[in-house]
Structure formats: C-alpha cells, structure tokens
C-alpha cells in the first residue's frame, strides 16, 4: 500500500525532530525559529503525502492531513498552522501538475483546517503539551470527518460521485491519518519514557474528566448514530416505497383508463412504461397473466425470470403484495447483474413491477446517514472540546490559582491571601484557607512570644555575668561594653584583680551568635577566670583553657581571645593572643597603633595547642583598647565593612577622651557608618587606662656590648644618641660620657679576667623627675667598684697615685651611684638629674 510510505515518513520525521531537540545547539534556538523550521518540514511532508496518494475515482486518497496534525499537536501551535498552510497551498496549486480538481477546494481547506485545529486544541485543551496517542487518533478521525464533509459541501452538484468517493475513501484516509498521528505520538512517548498508560494517581482532574466525558460522549454518539441509522434506514425504505407507489399508481391509472381496448393495451402499456422513470435508474416492467414481459425489445414475451426476477409466491398466486422484494436483474445492454428492489401490483390482469437499483435507493439513505453521522461526530467533538475548555476555565484554572497561592504560603509568605471568587465554592474555599492561615499565624506568633520572653531572661543573666566597671582606683581604669547582635551574644570581656599588684583583663569572641554561642561563652569565661586565679602565666592559662574547652566540644565551637596580665608595680604586661584581633595601644604622648604580635591559634579549636606569651612595659598614660571583630566587620547596607583603618583613624581623633565617653563615641561612629543595616555581629569594647603613679615611670632602653675597650665608642655613641633624645644639655652629656667610660673600662679590663663577656647598658628617663637612670650590668667577677677609696685630690703631682681616678669621677659626676649583685650579675645603677 502506497500510503504506508508517507505514514512512515511522518513518523520518522516526528521522531527526528523530537530527538534533535535534545541537542544543545538545537535546543538553544529561539522558540519561533524552531516552530517555523518544524512548520516548513512538515509542510513538506504534507505536500509529499499529496503526491504519494492512491488515485481513486478521480481523486487521491492520501494522508496529507497527518503532517499538520502531528506538527501542531506534538511540537507547537505555530508549527501546526505553518505546515497546514504549506500543505494546503501545495494542494491548491497541485492541480497544475496532476492533482484532482473536484476535491481541490475541500482538500486544501481541510489541510489548513487540520493545522488550525491542531494548533487550537494544543493551546486550549492540552495546555501546550503533547496529547496522548488516543487523543491523536481521535483528532485525526475528526479531521478526516471534516475533510469528508467539506468534500460533500463543495460537490453538492455532483453528490453521487462525491458520495462514492467518500464512501470508499473515508476508511483508508481515517485509518492512514490516525495511524500516522497516533504512531508518531507513541514514538515520542517511548523516547520520553512516558509509556502508554499513565497511573491513575498522577492524572489530573482534567484528564480524568476528559476520559469520562469522552466515554459519555462516545456512548451518546453511538446511541444517536444507531438511532439515526435506524431512522435513516426506515426513512429510506419508506421513501423508496413512496416512489414505487407513485410510479405504479400512475401507470395503473393510465392503464385503467385504456382498459377497454385489449388489443391496443399492450402497446399502450409498453409506451407508458418505456418512458416511466422510477427514480434515476429504476424502471417499470409489465407482466401479462403468464408473467411474461410486455416489452418491445429482446425480452418480449420472455418470462420475468429471464431478467432475473424469480416470481415470489404472491406473484404466482396473482396477489398484490405490499412487500419489497429483491432480485439480481441482468442489464440487457451491459450484461451486468445489479441488485434491484421491486414491488408489484396486479392491475387489469397485468402485473406491474416497479424496480429500482438497491444502490440508488440506498444512496439516499447512505448519503444522508453518512452526512448526519459526520455532522454528529463534528457536533459531539465540538461539544466535547467546549465542555472540556469550559470546565478547565471554571474549575481547573481556579484550582491552579488556589494551588499557586498555597505554594507561596508554604514558601513562607504567611501574609498572602487566597482570592479566587469566581463562584460560591471557590469563594468559600478561599475564605476557609485564609482563616486557617490566620489561625496558624496566631499560633506561631504566640510561640514566638514565649521564646522571646525566655531570651529576654537569658539576656539578663548574661548581662549580670559580665563584670561592671571597677571601683575607682589610682592605678588603672577599665571601661567595657558588650552589645549583642541578638538577645544573647557570644562575645565577652572580663577583668579582675589577681592580687594586690596584678590585674587581668581580656576580650573574647565565640564563633557564632545567639544561644549556642552564649552558652559556650559562659563556660569559656569561667574556665579562664579559674585558671587565672590559680596564678598561672598567661600563656599557660590559654594552653590549659584550650585543653578543657576541647573536651566535650562536640558542637565544634571555638573562641578567639586576647588576655593581658599587668604587674602594677613594674608596668610589665604579659599578654597572649589566641586568634584574636590585634589590640590598639596608645603610648602616653603618641597615637593609637595596632599591637600586632603574632597571634596563636584559636581556643577550643584543636587539642594540644601551646600558646606563647609576649611582654611589654606599660607606662602611665598608656591606653590599651581591646575589641572583637564586630567592630571592624560592622557592615552597612552596601556591604562595606567599617574596617581596621577607619577604626584606627577614628580612635586617634578622639584619642584622649575619657574611657566612659570614648566607647559610646566609637559606638556612635560605628552606628553612623552602618546606617539602616541590622547589627551583624556582637560588638565588644574594652578600654584599659594605666594611670600615673608616684615616682613616675622609667622607660629603659637596653643595649648590650662586648666588654672590650674597642667597644667604647659604640657604648658612648649609644649614650650620646639616647641623651640627645632626652634633650640633655651638652656639658652634662659630656660629663656623663666620661662617667660611663670609667665604669665601662673597668668592666672591660677586669670583669671577665682572661675570658670574654658582655656588658649591658640600660638608660631610662623619668620625664616627671627629669632623672636619667643608667644601669650597667655584667656577669663577671663580683666586684663593687664603690668599695675603692677615693683618691686624695689634694696631693701634689709627685704624690698623686695613678689609679682610682675613674670611679671617683663617676661618683662625682652622677647624682647617685649604687651597686648590687643579683643572680650572678653586677649591677651598677647611676642616676643623673638634668
């Protein structure tokens, strides 16, 4: 069957286009471009199918409509329309190269309609998705029905030829097109892993409804069709009867009128019957009493059976019957046997037979039936589509709207309102959903309020755990603040006196914020304080605290910390840094600078970490500012950070402010920078002021030299440089140098005997008392140079001794000279006031 080829080509092309869409370059093409390409491809198939049909009865049986249907249903509305137009145009012009003419209009329009139908159904009924194969088949059938109806309509003048064509062409064309469309859809389904039948539960209302509606409609259609069939059948019969009756009665009347003259009657009868038409191809035959034909051709006087009519009982008996009889009558001319139906009536001794080809009689029936069946198909299909679309509009779309709104509620937006009010049911549904959400919101708010209360309580506990500020004392001042990002925070500061002469202070930051960090913070604070109060050095405190915090730390939290322990008598500050921000230190007459000494690892991060301490000497007037990363990392709405530079700048702007004003001023500056953005991290600040004390502070500069005479110029160079920095008058500077030289030369000559060693010279200046302190130390033989008696300066030159002059000069130059021997070190301390 030739038709198989275009069917196959349709399927292959469908599969090809579907699979090609999986490839990236094809997938990336814009939608309309793809549609146009598909439209053109399938338009080509449609044209191809036109030429690849089977000729029959002056027209071509083909599967042209399958291509636009496939394109439109499977790939998209624009493709369907485009291919339908191309196919239709091709058909229209195909008369110039051999296409049939009498179906020209119908076929062209049908193809275009096929495209439009596929496009419309895809958009309105299938939500722009490919339908199932069963739908594809049904749509193809309906399309061919329309096609046939169009053929009828456009050939009203030649209805019998059209009817014959339609009668024979309907099944092949329906079959061919539906197989083409159905198989194409099945192929695509196979390759997209959909399978033939979908599970009940994943079907939507739409599909369920479609199926059931379809069943109802099909049943209704079958009932109406059957009814129509029966009706049409009966009516055809009646009509034929009518025709027969009329014909026979006419002849009967004529015969009765002429019944007197028997001789002439036969001729008259022949005349009368010869020109009497029954329908188009029917005839009237007259039989005499022997049932022989009264006719003037070859069959004259032949028994009626010779033309194929076997006389039924009633005829043999000479009785008129009202029944219809069937016989295969041989056409005298063509010798073809055609089935006829006939009635007979006995009139004036003649038997009148009125006969008509069954085909003709039935033609009316068949044509009407076919037309009405087609119309019913069309009407029911249209009804189906309309009902479906209507249901979709009224119910399914509204359900989708409700669903979408519910989805937004699920995503967290509890303020969304469902507002679908197209009818009472949906109104009621909307209201019920809204009131449910409102109730839920209320429950949520109540639960949140309960939590808030607990958090407030926790915040108070945490606040009272942090020390408030120290009672006023003369040696130092501490002022600190912790501002949590949430109700409770993970930052903390702490300060306490460890003894009369030592004070410890620290700042720490637990990873994270909120309740977990707050709980860890309380633990860490307690552990550190306990260890500090046991008298450990600061690095040991951190090492031990780290050990303890690593135990039972399954949550993997860690703490950064900076801790300092200050000896108030010496100003010596021992401090350690566990991954924390560098503090800012301001020396008495200087600016704030970052104290960047290498930070150790965080606390509670890893077991076994050992920490190192560093040292520096604080002098009264010095300030130390500790903070957590909430300060430099404060973020504004443009995601910019406050930063270390900005912090340093601002701190130097308000460098001398009282601590109690300093912290609020800094916080205000941070707030100004952050603006509307919410506080991201806990902010902690601690200012430690080392106040002036009696006697002032001696800042010592130490330098060590080899105890050799050759180093003398270096030693004196160091002295000169340092004294110049103190603004020492030249005369005194020279005298001091002499004094230092005397001591140094002594050490160089005698301290280490035959061996070698070093001497350390420390120079310190007390800018309050204007005293310069010189501290010369060596590790040589214990020797107190002050023990040597002074030379008698009143002796004459002859009497003067050579030695002993040096230390004498030193003693005379300096305001005070003291000697001590500690831990194997000779210490000579000299003080000169300038």
């Amino acid at each position, binding site marked *: 069957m030739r038709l198989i080829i275009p069917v196959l080509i349709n399927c292959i092309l469908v599969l090809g286009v579907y699979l090609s869409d999986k490839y990236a370059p094809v997938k990336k093409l814009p939608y309309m471009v793809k549609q146009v390409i598909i439209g053109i491809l399938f338009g080509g198939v449609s044209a191809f199918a036109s030429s690849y049909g089977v000729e029959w009865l002056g027209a071509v049986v083909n599967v042209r409509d399958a291509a636009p249907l496939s394109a439109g249903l499977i790939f998209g509305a624009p493709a369907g329309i485009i291919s339908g137009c191309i196919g239709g145009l091709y058909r229209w012009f195909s008369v110039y190269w051999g296409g049939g003419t009498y179906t020209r209009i119908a076929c062209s329009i049908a193809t275009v309609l096929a495209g439009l139908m596929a496009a419309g159904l895809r958009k309105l009924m299938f939500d722009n998705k490919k339908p199932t194969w069963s739908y594809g088949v049904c749509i193809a059938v309906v399309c061919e029905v329309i096609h046939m109806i169009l053929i009828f309509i456009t050939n009203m003048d030649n209805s019998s030829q059209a009817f014959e064509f339609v009668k024979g062409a309907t099944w092949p064309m329906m079959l061919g097109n539906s197989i083409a469309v159905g198989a194409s859809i099945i192929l695509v389904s196979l390759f997209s892993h959909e399978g033939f039948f979908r599970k009940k539960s994943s079907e939507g209302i739409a599909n369920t409804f479609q199926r059931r509606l379809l069943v109802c409609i099909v049943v209704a259609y079958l009932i109406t069709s059957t009814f129509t069939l029966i009706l049409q059948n009966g009516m055809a019969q009646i009509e034929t009867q009518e025709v027969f009756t009329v014909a026979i009665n006419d002849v009967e009347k004529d015969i009765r009128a002429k019944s007197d003259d028997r001789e002439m009657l036969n001729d008259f009868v022949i005349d009368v019957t010869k020109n009497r038409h029954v329908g188009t191809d029917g005839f009237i035959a007259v039989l005499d009493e022997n049932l022989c034909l009264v006719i003037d051709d070859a069959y004259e006087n032949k028994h009626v059976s010779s033309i194929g009519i076997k006389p039924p009982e009633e005829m043999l008996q000479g009785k008129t019957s009202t029944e219809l009889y069937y016989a295969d009558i041989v056409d005298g001319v063509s010798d073809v046997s055609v089935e006829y139906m006939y009635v007979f009536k006995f009139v004036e001794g003649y038997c009148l037979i009125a006969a008509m080809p069954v085909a003709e009689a039935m033609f009316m029936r068949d044509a009407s039936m076919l037309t009405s069946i087609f119309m019913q198909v069309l009407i029911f299909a249209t009804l189906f589509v309309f009902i479906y679309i209507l249901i979709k509009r009224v119910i399914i779309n509204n359900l989708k709207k409700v669903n979408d709104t519910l989805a937004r509620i699920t995503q967290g937006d509890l303020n969304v309102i469902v507002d679908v009010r197209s009818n009472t049911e949906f109104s009621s549904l909307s209201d019920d959903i809204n009131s449910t959400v409102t109730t839920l919101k209320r429950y949520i708010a109540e639960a949140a309020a309960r939590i808030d209360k607990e958090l407030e309580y926790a915040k108070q506990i945490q606040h009272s755990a942090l020390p408030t500020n120290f009672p006023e004392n003369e040696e130092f001042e501490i002022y600190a603040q912790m501002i949590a990002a949430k109700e409770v925070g993970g930052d903390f500061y702490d300060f306490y006196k460890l003894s009369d002469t030592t004070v410890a202070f620290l700042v720490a930051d637990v990873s994270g914020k909120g309740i977990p960090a707050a709980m860890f913070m309380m633990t860490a604070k307690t552990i550190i304080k306990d260890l500090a109060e046991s008298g450990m050095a600061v690095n040991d405190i951190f090492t031990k605290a780290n050990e303890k915090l690593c135990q039972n730390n399954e949550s993997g939290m860690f703490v950064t910390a900076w801790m300092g322990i200050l000896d108030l008598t010496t100003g010596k500050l021992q401090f350690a840094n566990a991954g924390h921000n560098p503090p800012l230190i301001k020396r008495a007459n200087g600016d704030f600078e970052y104290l960047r000494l290498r930070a150790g690892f965080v606390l509670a991060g890893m077991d076994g970490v050992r920490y190192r301490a560093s040292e520096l000497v604080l002098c009264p007037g010095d300030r130390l500012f500790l903070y957590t990363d909430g300060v430099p990392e404060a973020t504004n709405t443009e995601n910019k950070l406050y930063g270390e530079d900005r912090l340093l700048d601002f701190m130097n702007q308000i460098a001398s402010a009282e601590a109690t004003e300093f912290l609020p001023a800094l916080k205000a500056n941070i707030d100004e920078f952050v603006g509307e953005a919410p506080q991201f991290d806990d902010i902690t600040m601690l200012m430690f002021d080392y106040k002036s004390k009696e006697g002032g502070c001696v800042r010592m500069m130490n330098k060590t030299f080899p105890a050799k005479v050759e180093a003398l110029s270096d030693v004196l160079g160091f002295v000169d440089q340092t004294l110049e920095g103190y603004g020492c008058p030249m*005369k005194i500077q020279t005298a001091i140098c*002499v004094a230092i*030289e005397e001591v140094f*030369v002594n050490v160089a000559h005698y301290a280490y005997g035959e061996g070698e060693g070093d001497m350390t010279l420390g120079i310190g200046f007390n800018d309050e008392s204007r005293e310069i302190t010189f501290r010369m130390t060596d590790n040589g033989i214990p020797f107190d140079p002050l023990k040597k008696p002074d030379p008698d300066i009143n002796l004459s030159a002859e009497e003067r001794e*050579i030695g002993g*002059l040096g230390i004498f000069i030193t003693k005379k130059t300096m305001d005070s000279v003291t000697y001590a021997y500690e831990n194997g070190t000779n210490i000579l301390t000299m003080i000169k006031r300038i």
Partner: protein
Amino acid sequence: MTIEIKKNTEETIIELVGRLDTTTAPALDKTINEDIAGTKKLILDFSGLEYISSAGLRVLLSAQKKMQKIGAMKVTNVCEAVMEVFEMTGFADILVIE
C-alpha cells in the same frame, strides 16, 4: 684624636683635637715619651680638645711629673667640660693651666 707637634727652639707645642679617652690616651703618652725628647718646655694646646677621661688624666700626670724635673709644662685653651674634670679631680692645682 689628632696630635700635631710644632717644635721650635724654645718649646714644643702639642695640639690635640678630639677626645682624650682610654683608646686615644696611649697615643699621647707615646708622643710625649718619644717624639719630644729633649724638649725643655712643653705646651699642650687643648683648644680642640672636647673630652677627657681618667686615662687622659693619667697621661697628663705622668707628663707633668716628668717635665717638672727637666723643665716646665703648661696646658692652654682648656674648654669648660675639661676644666670641670680638672677641678673635680684636683688636677687644676697640679697642672699649670692658662
């Protein structure tokens, strides 16, 4: 420290410029003991001398003792700092200072 010697028939003038401390004193000592043998009159010009320590004083003392026996020695143009040392140590009385 630089040592400049100007000899004439009557006297020898030693000009010192710089510092007379433990490291430079030996050089002066050598000069006085060797380079000016035979001089009866020694003048030490301290106009360029800004610093003196006990090592320098020792050299001066030994020079004074020596010159006292064979002639005379005097020290001229002493700056304030050096003068203070002389006074502090009683050398102001031992040396002839102009």
